[in-house]
């Protein structure tokens, strides 16, 4: 019995393939329901973002069980087994734990340390809890696994520099705009040119509440097409001078061979535009904005080299935090492993207490028959005495049993307790957890288990192992 994860990510599949595997927010509940009903998954969580789609499962008895889940994924992507299988990876046991903790901490993200993934993991976990099936899809093990992952991710972000500083041009622009304008709601942005980076930057600003997007391009058609996508209006370069006074942020990315925005235009605009500052993000090569524009104290001008330097320094700083982040993840993984190990003693403890309770009741009944002359109050005291005695007798063995199992003495201890107290075998429920203190590996799939130090490339290695 094991934890398992099956999925595709930016490590294994290009964006056009990842898009096919992607589950939109409105599709997740139905997909989870089908995984339970049709594929028989007991505990299941589906994580689907633009960079990965992963299905977390527990328990997986045999590798063949994953074939059904994989079938669902391939069906969703509209791919045959032959076409789709090379993109899909599987992890089992502790590999799943380390992988999810790294994903949640942003260490496995395309842009290392990005914070959005923490919220996406939380939403995936919550979505599993919202599907109205019994027992719950995020059951005992996956509930604990995701809670631990979110705690690990939170601690990594709080205590390391993994998520510090913006690591993309778009996020640097947003960070700058926040510091220059405070709240971005209602601010107006002008895009010069129709490049992808400019579009991404404006989309990022839009998420912060920036409104009133104006797209200016040499050709009106392209400007209108982009403006339609961004919910803005189109304009031509000739209108720049009249537009500029009402603009707060300019994102320039034209292919023009000479500056499009001149010192004279900006001076005139600032003269008319009051005291509001102007942020200009010039990501064009050659530059779209005359360098002297940045000399004005009301203008904050960043060109592509400035932005690249900032992004590079932030990424470098994030990388220096990797060892510390990995230590935090290892510690959380260890705690999860310890908790998981204690699962195997739950049925034993339950049996032990049931046995004790049965004996207690038997003996108090025997005593009650002989002390029938006692008033009701005294008999209640005898009952209470027997209960307290039993609880005290079983308390230490219970605590020490959990402790011993957490420290690695699982199967021997469990056997010893069963033998000493004459407990019957735990049956099916017991078998569900017994002997899998390492979170188990199904059948012959030990080849998937990662034994080395976890790192951001573990998934690639695992995938190559799988394919190898």
């Amino acid at each position: 019995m094991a934890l398992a994860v099956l999925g595709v990510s930016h490590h294994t599949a290009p964006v056009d393939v990842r898009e096919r595997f992607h589950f939109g927010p409105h599709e997740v509940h139905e997909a989870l329901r089908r995984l339970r009903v049709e594929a028989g998954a007991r505990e299941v969580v589906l994580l689907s973002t633009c960079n990965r789609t992963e299905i977390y499962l527990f328990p997986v008895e045999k590798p063949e069980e994953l074939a059904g889940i994989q079938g669902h994924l391939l069906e969703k992507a509209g791919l045959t087994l032959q076409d789709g299988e090379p993109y899909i990876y599987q992890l089992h046991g502790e590999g799943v734990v380390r992988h999810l903790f790294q994903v949640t901490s942003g260490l496995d993200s395309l842009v290392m340390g990005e914070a959005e993934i923490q919220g996406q993991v939380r939403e995936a976990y919550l979505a599993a809890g919202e599907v109205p099936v019994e027992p719950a899809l995020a059951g005992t093990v996956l509930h604990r696994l995701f809670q631990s992952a979110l705690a690990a991710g939170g601690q990594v972000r709080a205590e390391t520099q993994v998520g510090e500083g913006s690591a993309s041009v778009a996020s640097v622009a947003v960070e700058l705009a926040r510091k220059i304008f405070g709240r971005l709601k209602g601010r107006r942005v002008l895009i010069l040119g129709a490049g992808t980076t400019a579009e991404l930057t404006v989309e990022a600003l839009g998420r912060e509440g920036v409104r009133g997007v104006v797209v200016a391009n040499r050709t009106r058609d392209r400007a209108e097409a982009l403006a339609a996508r961004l919910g803005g209006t189109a304009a031509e370069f000739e209108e720049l001078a009249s537009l500029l006074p009402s603009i707060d942020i300019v994102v320039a990315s034209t292919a023009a061979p000479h500056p499009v925005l001149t010192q004279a235009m900006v001076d005139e605009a600032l003269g008319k535009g009051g005291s509001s500052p102007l942020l200009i993000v010039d990501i064009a090569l050659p530059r779209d904005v005359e360098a002297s524009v940045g000399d004005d104290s009301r203008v904050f001008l960043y060109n592509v080299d400035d932005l690249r330097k900032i992004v590079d320094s932030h990424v470098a700083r994030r990388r220096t935090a990797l060892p510390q982040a990995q230590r935090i993840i290892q510690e959380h993984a260890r705690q999860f492993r310890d908790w998981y190990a204690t699962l195997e003693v739950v049925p034993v403890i339950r049996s032990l207490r049931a046995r004790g309770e049965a004996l207690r009741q038997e003996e108090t009944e025997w005593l009650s028959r002989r002390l029938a002359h006692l008033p009701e109050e005294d008999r209640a005291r005898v009952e209470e005495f027997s209960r307290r005695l039993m609880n005290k007798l079983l308390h230490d063995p219970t605590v020490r049993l959990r402790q011993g199992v957490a420290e690695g003495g699982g199967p021997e201890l469990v056997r010893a307790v069963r033998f000493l107290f004459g407990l019957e075998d735990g049956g099916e429920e017991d078998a569900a957890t017994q002997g899998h203190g390492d979170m188990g590996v199904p059948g012959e799939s030990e080849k998937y288990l990662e034994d080395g130090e976890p790192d951001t490339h573990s998934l690639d290695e695992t995938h190559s192992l799988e394919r190898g």
Partner: protein
Amino acid sequence: MGPGALLSLEPPPLPSSAHLVIHVVALILYVGAFLFWLRFLLSGARGDGPRLASWLAGIGVVAHGAALSHYVLVYGELPLVGLGPALSSLSFSLGIGLVATVLVVREAARVGIVVIPLMVGLEAVALGMGVVPAPMALDFQGAWFALHVTLAFVGFQGLALAFAAGLLFLAQFHEIKAKRLGSLFRFLPPLPVLDRVGRVGLWVGFGALTLALSLGWAWTVRYRGSFQWTDPKIVWSVVSWLVFVYALWARRGSGGAYKGALAVVTGFGVVVVSFLVVRFTAMGTGLFL
């Protein structure tokens, strides 16, 4: 701060150790708050430093208020006369201003990294000089005097807050202009937040100081019949008032936020330097701030 007057010949009462202990507790809490801010800044603006620093400063202000209340109970007068009590009251006034700022604009809590050292400095000097009443000028009493000094304190409180916000504004402005998006950039609040705190501080301070000076002038003319324009404390008060006027004037027009910040920072320097000059060259009675 007020007109000169005859001095009482009675010696001041002995200091009460209880309120001094509370003063020291307040000082320690202020120092603790500042250290949390510093640690937060040096650690790359990570962790829950701001929350702890704000709480410590807030508790410090409460303790400081308790110490000053105890002073009133022990000595039967407001802690306004004598350099020690007056500096301690000014420090407390800055604390109140800081707490009010944090409550209104949470993001502006970081001006604490400048305001708290000012509070610590004022309170430390006050304790060093002794928070005990000075031999009191007989006409330095009554509601007019309390109102005059309190308004003056509010005036300097506003100026100090505007100075703190202005200093951080300039630092943030230079970080962004220099394209250094490091830990100082992350630590400092957005420019409009700092500008708002500076603007409100200046207007509140200007209004309060104008009222304080008008009150002092009216009283002097009414009861003394003459106004000594060459009196150093009056010169200093007028210099301070002109600094406000200059800082408010500088804010007008395009790029006013930056010019206003620059003006208030230099203006605050002028006020402090002129005070030190006046204090250590002309006066020395212990009655004048």
